[in-house]
């Protein structure tokens, strides 16, 4: 039912900075400011009105909030001071946790699988491996193509010792502590999401 506030209230409570969604006055500055704007299905302010409008499916299935590159243009300009970048990331996370997010959506895939997998397996970002995984995510041919497109940048970074071509496999020293922290955080989060 339109404007059934149960979805909105859950978002206000359980999504990062979600309660700020109440404050949007629909001016559109965020939408106009976003450099990825043309690629969003719904602009930030549309997402907020959809949340308030009870449009759970539209919001959570949308790829929009996955587009945010954290440029912060929106936060800086929002006249109500909404922390839009964080709200949007929060909605993405919320969609993911609730099982609505499309696993093949590019950013989702990168964030929740490739990036996460990379960090969690060693306790740090292994850049070369991360890059390779990202490049080859759609298959060999596209991976090679991407690599070739980026070869000048890669070469430059190698020459200035900013890229270690050897993929790091080893874990960090405190790996056990690290996994314990992750496990604890996940436990707390699960509790919170269960509505404790």
């Amino acid at each position, binding site marked *: 039912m339109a404007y059934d506030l149960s979805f909105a209230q859950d978002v206000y409570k359980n999504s990062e900075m979600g309660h700020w969604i109440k404050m949007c006055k629909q001016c559109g500055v965020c939408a*106009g400011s976003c450099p990825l704007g043309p690629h969003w299905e719904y*602009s930030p302010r549309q997402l907020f009105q959809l949340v308030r409008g009870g449009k759970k499916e539209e919001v959570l299935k949308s790829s929009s909030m996955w587009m945010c590159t954290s440029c912060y243009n929106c936060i800086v300009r929002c006249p109500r001071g909404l922390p839009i970048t964080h709200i949007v990331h929060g909605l993405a996370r919320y969609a993911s946790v609730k099982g609505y997010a499309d696993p093949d959506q590019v950013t989702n895939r990168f964030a929740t699988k490739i990036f996460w997998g990379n960090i969690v397996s060693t306790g740090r970002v292994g850049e070369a491996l991360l890059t390779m995984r990202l490049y080859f995510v759609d298959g060999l041919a596209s991976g090679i193509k991407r690599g070739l497109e980026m070869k000048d940048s890669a070469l430059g970074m190698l020459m200035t010792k900013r890229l270690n071509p050897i993929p790091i496999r080893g874990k960090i020293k405190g790996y056990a502590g690290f996994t314990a922290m992750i496990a604890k955080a996940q436990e707390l989060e699960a509790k919170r999401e269960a509505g404790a």
Partner: protein
Amino acid sequence: MADDQAAGRTILVVGGGISGLTAAVEAAEVGYTVLLVEKEPQLGGRVSQHFQYFPKLCSPSCGLEINYQRIKNNPRIRVLTLAEVEAIIGQEGDFTVRIRQHPRFVTEKCTACGECGKACTALVSNPFNFGMDQVKAIRNSHAMAYPNWYFMDADYAASAEARSLPCPVGAIDPDMTATVLEEKVGSIVWATGWQPYDAEKIHPYGFGRHANVSTNMRFERLANSYGPTAGRLLRPSDGKEVKKIAFIQCAGSRDHNHLPFCSRVCCLASMKQATYVREQYPDAQITIYYIDLRAMDRYEGFQKKVETDPGITWIKSKPARIDEDPVSKDPIVIGENTLTGIRYADSYDLVVLATGMEPTSATTARVPGNNAAYDEYGFVVKGGQVLSSGCAAAPLDVAGAVQASTAVALKAIQAAAKRG
């Protein structure tokens, strides 16, 4: 019957714009003595910079003229210009105020004959026109200025030329110094009005960087027949006629990064300025970008009238930023139309930012001592020793300022009657 003792007490009105003028004449016409103190060399304040008022599209000079007549006819009103209140001691019913009168460098003998102005070769940036043109260093601030009495810029007064200016009545006195007066008054009305919010602070809109991004007050001066372009609406970069224009509402208003409050008049002011454009360029394209159109109560009639103009496009959107075409210098307004969801990048000849009113009581015209109560925006509110009205107290349109100032005149009369 009014308390006879109160009739002897003076009411001090600080600020000679429409609010201060109203408070002063209304109180004086009830029979009270009023001291009106204005920091500029001449009265009239912000409204004297306007071309027309909404909704009647009439000249501010008309009402100002009647108010000046009322002052001229009323020996109970004493006017001090180039004057500021430095100190306030005491309480309602019994204040002592210290007023500093800055030197005018021209005495009351002045007949505004203009001989000195003809001989003066020094030009200064004209503050009355927001620096859009230059004026002589000795002058009246505008054609209908009152008191009709020239003044000299302080910097110029030190020059050799200032000493040798011709004056048939010997009114020029470059050695004039400031004077300090002490006055006893019964009540104080703080009516120091507003200044336009500094549009340069609204960085994404490019005021100050893009030549053809202007502000509502600057545009008002352009439109004014006694303004820097004699009323012709021409854009700053190349003097081109403004045939395609955008107004951006809430520029730096309703915005926690700038002025969090709403200035009330800007929507109507832009609608009014749209009529200026239409009057001058019958085929001009006009766009108004807004969040909420605030044509309050009976002013809705004015909005309806302006809406009948088919050449005005109304877009519900707060633009994200303004870019500039490097060759044509056309400003390009970028944002999202919230009713269609469509992103736009529209170019114009000129963009007018409808910036808001910042009360001077928040910045340059603080009430001396601990005598005022302020709200979070710097407006002077109830609870202090001084009364306030007009835009020093809240964002108001002219009729609202006059209404509030008429009311405050009564409160000032009542306060003056209080025993010290």
